[in-house]
């Protein structure tokens, strides 16, 4: 299982796929991935924690650093795949003020591109 943060891009979205343990040692690969993201001039940063089951304080600190950097670059940040416990921790450290927590990628996309509202049934015209 990969221990490093992977980068992938989809249009304006740059994905950072976090490994199982997000710890201090993750920092190097995380920044390497983030640099790619910067070069790609993505506008959206998507932090994928779907495979992560252990984030310690160092890992959360890493996320804070990345988010603050992305915010300064004017990028919007999403995070998804987190358990309720880590979402609680994200909230405790104030990350939820700087990123959008969503349940999954689709939720993110939906938030970025909200589906068009369902068309309202046309009302019949009445004669007067």
């Amino acid at each position: 299982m990969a221990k490093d943060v992977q980068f992938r891009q989809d249009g304006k979205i740059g994905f950072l796929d976090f490994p199982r343990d997000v710890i201090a040692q993750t920092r190097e690969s995380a920044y390497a991935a983030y640099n790619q993201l910067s070069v790609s001039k993505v506008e959206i940063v998507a932090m994928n924690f779907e495979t992560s089951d252990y984030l310690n304080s160092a890992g959360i600190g890493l996320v804070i650093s990345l988010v603050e950097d992305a915010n300064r670059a004017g990028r919007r940040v999403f995070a998804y795949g987190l358990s309720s416990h880590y979402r609680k921790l994200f909230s405790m450290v104030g990350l939820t003020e700087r990123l959008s927590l969503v349940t999954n990628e689709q939720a993110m996309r939906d938030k970025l591109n909200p589906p068009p509202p369902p068309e309202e049934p046309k009302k019949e015209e009445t004669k007067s």
Partner: protein
Amino acid sequence: MRKYAIIPYINTVFIYFLGSSVLERRFPVFIAAGLGVLLIVALIGVVTLFASGVIGRTVLDQFKVQQLQIGTSVAQQAEAYFNGLSFEIISLASSPEIQGIGTSQTPQAIAAIEANIERAGRQNTVQSVTRFDFRGRPRYAWPSQFNVLIEQGEEYPFAIPPELLEQTAEGGIIELPTQIYRFTLEGQARPDYLLITPVEARTGNTEYLVYELNLEDIFSQDLNLNEFVDSESGQLWILDNEGTLLYQARAEGETISDVREAFTATTLQNILAEGESVSRTYDPSGNERIAAIAPVQVSGYSFILMLSQDTNEASNLVANDIQLISAMAIGTIILISLLSLFGVRRLVHETSRRRAEASAQRTARALLEVSRALNSSLDLQTVLDRILIELQKLIPFYSASILLLNERGLLEVATHLGEDSEAHAQTTFLATEARAAREVIARGHPVIIQDTNNDERWTPLPGSDIKSWMGLPLRVFERSVGVLNVNGHEIDIFSTQDVELAEAFSDQASVALQNARLHDMEVKRIEQELTVARGIQTSLLPTEPPNIPELEIAFTSLAARQVSGDYFQIIPLPDRQLGIFIGDVSGKGMPAALIMAVITTALRDEINRHRYPGELLNALNERLLDRLLQNQMNSALIAALFDPISYEFTIANAGMVQPYVRAEDGMWDFVDVGGYPLGSTQQAHYNTKSLQLQPGKAMVLFSDGIVEAMNRRGEFFGFERLEQLLNKVASDATAESILKEIVEAVDKHLDEEVAQDDITVMVLRPLQTERPTLSPITGSKLPAEFPNGKELLDEDDSLTLIAEDEPAKKPSIFHHLDFSTGTENYSMPRQNVELFLPSTLGFEKVARNAAEAIAREMGFTEDRIDDLKTAVAEACMNAIEHGNLQDRSSAVTVLLSAAPGHLQIRVEDRGRQSIPDPLPAPGTSAPDRGWGLFFIQSLMDEVEITRLPEGGNLVKMTIYLGKTEGDMSESEPTSDASEWVDEAD
């Protein structure tokens, strides 16, 4: 100085010398003086004999020589006179007046002759001067009466000898010598003597000029020969070469026939032929005479000159000389003798003085040596024995002994030396016995008994033949405590000198005795003090090793002196840890023991605040530095902390020998840990070394007395021997047997030599114990990286993770997990889980999972379990990363205590870095830092952060059952979460 009856020593005599006071001297001086007198007398005799014999003969011979010298001298004067006369006549013969032959020139010639005679003053010695022609006819003459004879044609009184005329009669110049001729006129008793010299006349012929000599006047007036005959019997004779007497002086009544005996014709001819003077004795008329005969050779003619003297007169003269010489010699000898005798007297005095000085010096030296010898030991019996040995060197005795008063006032024989040892079988004398000795003690002065048979004070000693006795008091602090007995085998054996010497000796002996007694008292006092001190010291040292199942301990401490400078302590600590200490105070004896007691007290106090060895030694050094420096002492100390759960030894060393550890391969090696002794410097800083010693390994702590144990060959036991010994020790050898082997090896090395330093050894041997099984957590989530007991650490760390299928064969990091029955050997409460985590990041997951398992067992909700897991992980991670600085040899202790209604988690580290107080807000130094403690405090119901006395950090967290996530918000963090801060900052 005290006076005693003087009995002359057998080798002493009295000398009355030149009226001086009586001198007490030994034979050699008297003999020297006598020999000196005899020598002087002998000298007088020798000198007299020399004067009468050798000197007499020498003087007589000298007379002969002198007579010869005078004779020879007179002869030489005569020769000189006649040679001068010949020179005058030759000069005259060469003058023109004489060489001319004209008749008219005759007056000038005669005038010239007369002038010449007058100028030379020869009027009396030259009777006439005549000029002859070559045929012997006189031409003219001086004085005028002779010329008248010529002019008148009368017969001339003498003529030219025919042998000359034969040469010149034919005419011409003939070479002729100037010669003296004897000429005898008819009817004349004495011959005349003519001195004839040739004249080269102007006629071309050799003619003659003749001096007619008056020899008697020549000898008596011109040569004044009578002056040489100044003695009463002295005579002078002059004969011509034919033995005709020409002159005699002071030979009245004697004729030439009287002296002819002095020399025969042969002798005369020999003398004339050889021209040497001779000495002869002759006896002309019953009176022997001594004569010196000397030749006088002039102008082809010879005379004989003889000086003679009566032998008796010469002998008398010699005798007079001898008498004079003898008188002078005797006078001189007497004078010398007087001076010599005076010198001898002075010599005797000087010798006496020098003898006295030398004797005093010898005595002083002897007493000095005695003093040195006596004071070379402070052992009482040795001193007593030496007193007699040294006394014997000064005063030869038949026997000697020392009696000392005992506590009952009885005299006891303390020591004895001499031939009558059997007589001293009696060792104690009653008050009624040894009266003389008691008198010595009572008076405090010596007592002399020169004849024991006639002195009522003397009590005969059976088996002894003591004829004379001298008792000398032995005093200690001015009080007589005993008697020095000196026994003689003859009566009157002790001289004044002996008594004085013995008294001086007894004073020295008393001083030595006093010193020995003082020393004896001091030794007893010190022994008592040391006994007390040893008791105190022993009470401070462990007597039995503590009963720790995980560790076998054996120790011994052997003091080089009664009180040792080595010390050791084994102090039980909380959590069943054990503090182990071995120290060595500089110096030995009481001071070292007192310092040891101080250090032990400080050690037992400081360990309550500083459990970890490095910090403990730093604290001890700071606390004891001033006191140790003040006493110019220091102390080596090695401190070890043993954890029976992890088998971890943490060690710090302040100047002790590095301990030895046996590795699993059975080989021993030292542990590289060291530092300055306590009390050496304020800058000393001690670091802690950690090592795991699992069963099968062992450790030896020891003082330097082991390796520095030196045998009589000067060889140290040394590290090499120790290592060789340890490497031979069986791997399963008990601590006790290892200790025994070490001590025996050192003992054998010493080979009965006394160890110079204290020897302390402690052997520590970890033991395998039965551990509780891990069944309650079987199947718990182990980190995925370490499946099934994969080794976590290097082999040296000896800490392994137990495999699930080998639950009890190896020590586990999951100790004491026993929810059901617990373990009798342990005092921990039930339902505890204690973890020892290596300080490696990642192991926090082990604790996290263990906490999860327990919490789940206890019935916590999943949310709370998640909170617990995060808090436990964060606490462990901080302990690993900051508290222990990821030192893999330092463990993080995690104790999970399950109790009804709550779960308490204690996470403890070694405190390499301290948690700051107060905690800064998270994200202060950097946005991504400082969240760990924030989570802990936020997620746990109770959090307590403590700095332990021994230096570690303790994070104690509690989570309660029944509390919901919603309740969590009610729990306020005790402090703002923050990051770890380096203690150095």
